C-alpha cells in the first residue's frame, strides 16, 4: 500500500473533497452521492485494516503473481544506443495487464459493502477481463459495458469475458468506445444503486475512485522503486508510462513523485495527429472540463460538448484523463507528450522482434517515447517504463493494418 506522504509532498492529494488543485471532485447525480460517501467511508476503514491489507497482499502474491519482474531490456538498449531501459513487467500479471491490481482491491471492498452485483466499463477489454476474472473468483455476477467499436476490435477479450461468465453489453451510443461505455455503466449504476458495485477501471471518476485506484495501482511503483535500487543502486532518470485514463501511469509514477531527480513522462495517444480531432491527447490538446464525475483535461468543443477522439489503441481511446495527471501537469511535476498511431505500431513491432515480448498497443505508445528519448540520453542514464499489458488481444488489429493474413 502507498506510504504516508511527507508534508509539502506531491503525494498528499487529494484533499477531503477529492480535489487535486482544481481537478477531481464529485460531479455525480444525487442518486449516487450517498453510495459514493459510503464507499469513501468503507475505503478509509479498509485502508487501515490489517486484515484487508493481508488479504490484498496474499491475493497479490498467489493470484496475480506479484511482484512482477523488473526486466533490463538489453537488446533494445543496445539497439537504441543510449540510456539503459528497464521494463516493469505488468503484462506478466494474471489476466495480462496491470488492471487486475485494482480489480482485486475493489472486489474486496465490494464484498465488505455487501454488494452482490459487479458492473464495469472497458475499452481494450483488459479491465473487463480483469473484472470478469475477480467476479468469477468471488462468485459475483458481472456485467461489462463495452463500446460496439471496441467489441469488434478487441474480440479475443470479449470471448475471454464471456468464458469467465460475464455478460458483455455492447454500447452503440456515440462512437461506441470507452466514453460511451462509461456513460452506460453510470446509467446502470444509478438504476441499480442498492445492490451494485461499480468497479471503475481507471484512476478517474468521482472521488474516491481516482485516489483509491491509484493506491491499488501504486504497488507497481513501490515494487519498481525497490527493484531498480537493488539492480542499479540508484533511482531512474526518467519514468515513462502510457496514459489513457491513466491508472497504470499513476501507479508507477506516484511512489517516485517526491524523488526530485526523477523525471516523470506520461504518453498520450496522438492518434492521426493533433491538428484535427483524430486523437486522444487530453492534456496536450484539450482543456479543463467536467465529465464522468470529475474535473480534468478533456477533449471538447467551444460549447463544452465532449469530442469522440481517436486512437489505434482501444484502451487509450478516451477523451479525458485522471484528475491527478491534470494536476501533475499543471504544477509541472510531470510532462505529457503525444505519440501517433504509426509510431506506436512501429514500437510494437520493434519490441516484439528485439525482445520477444508482444506488448499491448497501449504501452506501445510508451515504448515509442522510449525509442525517441533513449538515444539522446547517456549510457549511464536509466529509463524505467511500465509495460502495462501484453499484446495478444491486439494481434488481429495489427495484422489487419500490416496486411498480414491471420
Amino acid at each position: 500500500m502507498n506510504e504516508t506522504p511527507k508534508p509539502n509532498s506531491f503525494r498528499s492529494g487529494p484533499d477531503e473533497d477529492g480535489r487535486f488543485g482544481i481537478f477531481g471532485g464529485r460531479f455525480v447525480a444525487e442518486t449516487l452521492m450517498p453510495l459514493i460517501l459510503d464507499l469513501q467511508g468503507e475505503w478509509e476503514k479498509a485502508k487501515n485494516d490489517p486484515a484487508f491489507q493481508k488479504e490484498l497482499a496474499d491475493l497479490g502474491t498467489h493470484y496475480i503473481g506479484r511482484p512482477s519482474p523488473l526486466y533490463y531490456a538489453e537488446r533494445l538498449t543496445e539497439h537504441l544506443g543510449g540510456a539503459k531501459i528497464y521494463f516493469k513487467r505488468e503484462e506478466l500479471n494474471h489476466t495480462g495487464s496491470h488492471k487486475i491490481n485494482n480489480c482485486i482491491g475493489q472486489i474486496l471492498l465490494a464484498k465488505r459493502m455487501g454488494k452482490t452485483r459487479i458492473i464495469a466499463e472497458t475499452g481494450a477489454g483488459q479491465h473487463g477481463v480483469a473484472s470478469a476474472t475477480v467476479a468469477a473468483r468471488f462468485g459475483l455476477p458481472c456485467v461489462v459495458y463495452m463500446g460496439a467499436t471496441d467489441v469488434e476490435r478487441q474480440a479475443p477479450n470479449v470471448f475471454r469475458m464471456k468464458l469467465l461468465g460475464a455478460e458483455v453489453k455492447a454500447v452503440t451510443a456515440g462512437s461506441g468506445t470507452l466514453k460511451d461505455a462509461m456513460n452506460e455503466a453510470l446509467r446502470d449504476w444509478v438504476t441499480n444503486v442498492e445492490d451494485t458495485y461499480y468497479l471503475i477501471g481507471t484512476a478517474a471518476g468521482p472521488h474516491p475512485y481516482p485516489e483509491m485506484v491509484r493506491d491499488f495501482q501504486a504497488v507497481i511503483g513501490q515494487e519498481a522503486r525497490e527493484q531498480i535500487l537493488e539492480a542499479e543502486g540508484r533511482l531512474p532518470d526518467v519514468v515513462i508510462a502510457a496514459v489513457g485514463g491513466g491508472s497504470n501511469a499513476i501507479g508507477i509514477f506516484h511512489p517516485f513523485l517526491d524523488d526530485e531527480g526523477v523525471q516523470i513522462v506520461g504518453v498520450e495517444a496522438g492518434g492521426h495527429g493533433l491538428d484535427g480531432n483524430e486523437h486522444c491527447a487530453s492534456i496536450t490538446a484539450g482543456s479543463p472540463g467536467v465529465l464522468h464525475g470529475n474535473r480534468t483535461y478533456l477533449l471538447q468543443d467551444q460549447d463544452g460538448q465532449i469530442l469522440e477522439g481517436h486512437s489505434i489503441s482501444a484502451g487509450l481511446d478516451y477523451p479525458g484523463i485522471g484528475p491527478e495527471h491534470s494536476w501533475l501537469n499543471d504544477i509541472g511535476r510531470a510532462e505529457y507528450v503525444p505519440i501517433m498511431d504509426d509510431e506506436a505500431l512501429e514500437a510494437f513491432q520493434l519490441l516484439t522482434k528485439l525482445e520477444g515480448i508482444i506488448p499491448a498497443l497501449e504501452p506501445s505508445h510508451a515504448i515509442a517515447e522510449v525509442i525517441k528519448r533513449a538515444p539522446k540520453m547517456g549510457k549511464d542514464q536509466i529509463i524505467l517504463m511500465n509495460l502495462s499489458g501484453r499484446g495478444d488481444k491486439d494481434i488481429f488489429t495489427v495484422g489487419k493494418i500490416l496486411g498480414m493474413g491471420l
Partner: protein
Amino acid sequence: MTSRMDARFAKLKAEGRPALVTYFMGGDPDYQTSLGIMKALPEAGADVIELGMPFSDPMADGPTIQLAGQRALKGGQTLAKTLDLARDFRKSDSDTPIVMMGYYNPIYIYGVEKFLDDAIEAGIDGLIIVDLPPEMDDELCIPALAKGINFIRLTTPTTDEKRLPTVLNNTSGFVYYVSMNGITGSALPDPSLISGAVARIKGHTDLPVCVGFGVKTADHAKAIGAAADGVVVGTAIVAQVAGSLTRDGAATPDTVSAVSTFVRGLATGVRSARLVAAE
C-alpha cells in the same frame, strides 16, 4: 420581490391544484420548432417549463432524451442558443417560470458568471444541474442563489433522512423528487410509495415538492398530482417530438401539435388530481 416561481406556485395553491411541469429539449430537432414547442406548452396547460440543455454525454438520461440531445446538437444547438430560446419566449410570455435543466460542463465552459448574467437577462428562473450535488455547491449553486436564480435540487429514494437536510439546504423554487433510482424514461413506481416520500420531504421543507421520472399518461399525472405539489413530465413529451419527425429526424407540420395535444391531456389529468384526492 416575489419571484416568478414563487408567484406561480402561490397561484396554483390558491387554485387548489398541482403544477404541471413540462420538460422539452432545447433545439430538438431545430431552433424554430423547439421555440414553437416552448410557446405551445403554456397554451396547452403547462405551468412551469423545464428547458433542456443538450449535452453530448447525458449520464443520467435514458435513450429518449439522449437521442433528443443528439438531434439538437446535430441541429447546431449551443448553450447560447438555448438562452436565446428563453429570450424569444419571454417576448410573449412574462409569467411562466423557466428552469434550465442539464449538465454542468457546457455552463462551466461558457463561464459561470457570464452564464448567470445572461440567464437572468434571458428570463431564466431556475436551474437543475444533474451532476452538481450539494458537495459541489461552490461551483454554481451559491453564485446562482446570490444572483437570484433558483437552484432546484433532485432528491431520490437514496436520499435518506440523514442526507435530506444536506440536499434541501440551498435548494429554492421547488424540490424535484425523482421517484425512483434510475435514468429518465423508466417505468412509474407505485403512487402510494410516492405520497409517503413526498410527506417525508415535506417534513423538512416548506418548498413545493414536484415529482417526476416515469410519468407518461394523463392517468399517471392525475395519480401523482394527488400526492404532490407538481408533476414533472419529460421523456413522454420528448417521445411525442421524436414520434412526429421524418425518418431523417426533421420536424414536420405535426411536431408542435403532437406536443400540444399530449400536454393538453396531461393538463386535464393534473387538473382533476385533487378532485380524486378529495373524494
